[in-house]
């Protein structure tokens, strides 16, 4: 229904209610007509008008519709003021609808929807006390009030002076109404207490107004229950109506507050874009935008379902309302916030998206920092490994070839000093043997520094030679048919060489299988696999394997070591091409 039609209907209903009151046929005290009319129309039109605005501004909330409904229900009470039997019946039946709508409005504010069992019970009770109960009253004794006093629902018009004596059934109904009012107040109070600051910001204006109305109603009903003079009730009814006139504005304010300012999201993105946005800055900006100081931002631990806070401590995300920040369909972080904000999923998601940009930015920075640290560390390790290799070469030379050459020199000097012929032969033979051994050691050393076969023949022949020289049986299962780039070839060779050395030295393996195959990526890289049947338990962070991993990482590849105790060792390296 369009707004214009609703406004027109409200105006017509107001005029009709006024006519019913003035010309309906009942005797209405002249001094009460004007205030009753003014207050009634003010309340009804305020609700309809502000309700329409609310419905327009917050189409997701039913509060606006309920406000409009209340406005019409407020006017509908005046049907009973027309002095005919059908009007009396309809009027009595509609007389308490406003109360039911009021209860629903207050209990379900600001969503307009019942969200808990307690709320559903209260709203249901509110409706049960209107049309059905009034129908019972009609059936029990409709004629009782006709032409004399007001119908049993106390909100309508005004009591005729003095003649009305409440009966037990009236008292019972009033007691139930009072109980309902108290329940509503308790419900509202507990809801306000349970929610966080963001939700309170939205709830407070509406709940304060509603509480005042219920409070006055309570006093008014208690007055009837306590058999106080009805005139006191009139004033109480009027004062509650005065509050009712301004209540819609309070409701609207609450609705708009719970909507939050969407421009805040724009500010959020701008603020987050500023330099120096650490995790706490990000959190405080998000908290300010959502008006929820308790907001928490948590990161997902990569490879797990768990979340951690900025300090790295694990966080349980189920305890509060959660909005996930996703990348490629996977949650990367989560925003823990006041459940009241869930009524505005669009806004929270917009804020989360803004925060997600910043977090993604921060994550990328962290990743770059981590990579930089990793590169620096591996660079340092590569230098150390190169130094260690030089030390090893110096020691090998000193202990091996150098000693043998010294022996050759001394033997020759002894020979020259004029040894007897028998000894001379022995000395020369000794010198020749030492020289042969020195040469063999020098060759082995040079080959270890860089295998000439790798340059001349390529990976296949070099690996074959390595396998033949290895101190344990090596099966060369596969080598690439074509020669990869030199750096790839070299890296693959040293991976196999180091893995074979480990298998022979530490693993106590009886056989080793080596295969070098083209990488599945098809980009020209190679995948190296060295599997032994030894004792396992190799330490991937040991200097040898660590050095290999650095070497492979320097080409952008990766090295994996699977070495369960007692079940052999599998070293796998993927060495990309360029």
């Amino acid at each position, binding site marked *: 229904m369009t707004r214009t039609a609703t406004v027109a209907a409200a105006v017509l209903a107001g005029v009709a209610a006024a006519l019913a009151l003035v010309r309906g046929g009942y005797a209405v005290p002249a001094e009460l007509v004007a205030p009753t009319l003014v207050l009634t129309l003010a309340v009804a039109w305020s609700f309809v008008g502000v309700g329409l605005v609310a419905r327009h501004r917050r189409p997701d909330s039913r509060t606006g519709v309920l406000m409009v409904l209340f406005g019409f229900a407020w006017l509908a009470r005046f049907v009973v003021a027309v002095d005919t039997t059908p009007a009396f019946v309809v009027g009595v039946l509609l007389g308490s609808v406003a109360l039911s709508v009021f209860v629903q409005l207050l209990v379900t504010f600001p969503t307009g929807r019942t969200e808990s069992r307690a709320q559903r019970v209260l709203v249901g009770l509110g409706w049960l006390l209107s049309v059905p109960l009034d129908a019972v009253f009609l059936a029990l004794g409709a004629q009782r009030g006709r032409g004399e006093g007001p119908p049993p629902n106390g909100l309508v018009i005004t009591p005729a002076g003095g003649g009305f004596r409440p009966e037990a059934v009236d008292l019972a109904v009033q007691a139930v109404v009072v109980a309902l009012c108290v329940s509503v107040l308790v419900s509202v109070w507990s809801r306000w207490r349970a929610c966080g600051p963001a939700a309170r910001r939205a709830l407070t204006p509406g709940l304060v107004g509603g509480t005042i109305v219920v409070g006055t109603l309570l006093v008014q009903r208690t007055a009837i229950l306590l058999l106080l003079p009805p005139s006191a009730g009139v004033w109480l009814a009027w004062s509650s109506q005065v509050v009712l006139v301004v209540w819609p504005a309070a409701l609207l304010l609450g609705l708009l507050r719970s909507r939050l300012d969407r421009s805040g999201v724009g500010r959020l993105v701008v603020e987050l874009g500023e330099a120096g946005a650490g995790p706490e800055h990000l959190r405080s900006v998000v908290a300010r935008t959502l008006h929820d100081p308790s907001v928490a931002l948590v990161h997902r631990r990569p490879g797990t379902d768990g979340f951690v806070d900025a300090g790295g401590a694990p966080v349980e995300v189920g305890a509060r309302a959660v909005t996930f920040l996703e990348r490629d369909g996977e949650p990367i972080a989560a925003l823990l916030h006041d459940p009241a904000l869930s009524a505005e999923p669009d806004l929270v998601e917009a804020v989360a998206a803004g925060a997600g940009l910043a977090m993604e930015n921060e994550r990328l920075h962290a990743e770059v920092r981590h990579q930089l640290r990793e590169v620096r560390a591996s660079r340092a390790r590569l230098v150390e490994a190169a130094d260690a290799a030089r030390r090893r070469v110096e020691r090998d030379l000193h202990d091996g070839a150098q000693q043998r050459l010294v*022996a050759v*020199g*001394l033997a020759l000097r002894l020979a020259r000093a004029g040894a007897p012929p028998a000894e001379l032969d022995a000395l020369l033979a000794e010198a020749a043997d030492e020289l042969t051994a020195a040469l063999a050691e020098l060759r082995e050393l040079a080959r270890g520094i860089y295998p000439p076969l790798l340059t001349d023949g390529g990976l296949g022949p070099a690996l074959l030679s390595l396998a033949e020289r290895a101190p344990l049986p090596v099966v060369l299962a596969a080598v690439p048919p074509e020669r990869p780039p030199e750096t790839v070839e070299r890296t693959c060779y040293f991976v196999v060489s180091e893995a074979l050395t480990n298998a022979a030295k530490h693993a106590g393996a009886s056989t080793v299988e080596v295969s070098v195959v083209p990488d599945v990526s098809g980009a020209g890289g190679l995948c190296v696999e060295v599997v032994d049947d030894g004792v396992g338990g190799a330490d991937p962070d040991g200097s040898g394997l660590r050095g290999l991993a650095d070497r492979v990482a320097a080409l952008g590849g990766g090295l994996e070591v699977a070495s369960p105790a007692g079940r052999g060792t599998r070293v796998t390296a993927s060495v990309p091409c360029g």
Partner: protein
Amino acid sequence: MTARVLIVDDHASFRSLARRLLVADGFDVVGEAGDAADAFAAVRALAPDVVLLDIRLPDLDGFGVAEVLAGDEDAPVVVLVSSRARIDYGQRVDASPARGFIAKDDLSGEVLRRVLAGAS
């Protein structure tokens, strides 16, 4: 008087050649040791005049052995030998209580005699 020499080196081929070389040059080689521990025992047992001491030993290095021996009464004269050159050890040779240094490939009775005489 013939100097009594103890040869300390972990390479048996060097010990054997050095012994023959020195004996041919008139030295009395009274014993050999392959590491620092054996060297200490041999010095106690044989009381040599000269210890020809390799710097690189498997347990304690020659400088350390020289320090320990220098603390004894009637300490033998220590002459360090190495297949490295003297310059590879910087000031360490001068700072040690050893009488001198001979590169292994220079070793002969004459050189040893010169070192023993020159520095004393």
